[in-house]
């Protein structure tokens, strides 16, 4: 199954440099519609609004540690909503500790990537989700 690069992607990270870097990697991979949010709480509102207006996000890439709403809290909120139960979610984290990964898996993460990562590793993680 080939990746549908026309899908809408949302990148969530409180650090501007990471939003920029991940967006660049996604666009270099071929994704045409990539938006971003600095905040998990705003991201969840964006996900709901996008769905309501008929242009839903189809892939979320989120950092773990963020103020206001962490990536894991965002994931839990998404998975608790019937509409977004199966929304592909890639968690980005600087801490690859086993306990954290177990928490993410139990919360329903689709895949995770540990920082630091190269664009090739990121591409492999995305391919694993969609192919």
């Amino acid at each position: 199954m080939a990746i549908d690069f026309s899908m809408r992607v949302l990148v969530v990270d409180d650090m501007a440099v990471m939003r920029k870097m991940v967006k660049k990697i996604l666009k270099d991979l071929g994704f045409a519609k990539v938006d971003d949010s600095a905040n998990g709480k705003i991201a969840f509102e964006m996900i709901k609004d996008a769905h309501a207006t008929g242009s839903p996000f189809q892939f979320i890439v989120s950092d773990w540690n963020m103020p206001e709403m962490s990536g894991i809290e965002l994931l839990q909120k998404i998975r608790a909503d019937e509409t977004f139960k199966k929304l592909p979610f890639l968690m980005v984290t600087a801490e690859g500790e086993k306990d954290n990964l177990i928490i993410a898996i139990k919360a329903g993460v689709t895949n995770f990537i540990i920082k630091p990562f190269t664009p090739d590793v990121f591409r492999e993680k995305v391919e694993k989700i969609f192919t």
Partner: protein
Amino acid sequence: MSDFNTRYLSFCKPFIDAIREVYSTMVTKELKAGSPVFKEQSGNYADYSALMGINGTLKNEEDDLQFKGSLVISWPLQTYLNTASTMLGEEYKEINDEIEDVGMEICNITMGNAKKILNPLGYKIEMSIPNLISGDHHRVKSEDGVKTIVIPFTSDIGDLFIELNYKDSE
């Protein structure tokens, strides 16, 4: 209890390995580490520094103790700009909103990766959120009684240094 200096030097190695890994993967540049130097206080100056506090315990066959400290990564302005430019594939000639948090992110990832290496050695570390200190030719000072190791790095995009500040908790 293990010898303090030996224990402190082995505590530093994961941070050296971690920042080299960050630069190798995300900045695609090799960092060469110079010799660590013990200082009672850092005398080094920089233009941008990222800082994270550390609260931890060490429990293994030799040691059972608590400690506090901090990780500081410091750059001259041009190295900071070169780092951001290389990371993002665009040339930056001054600091702006897009790249102001580069230092904090590098510090965050370095700390996260060092933690992973330190955990099996008996360390449990809690870290603060990263902070950025900016100001031409500034110095980061710790309180009296804190030991500081300074590790210089060179690369073909400029020099930088890290400081690990450490104090056994009473």
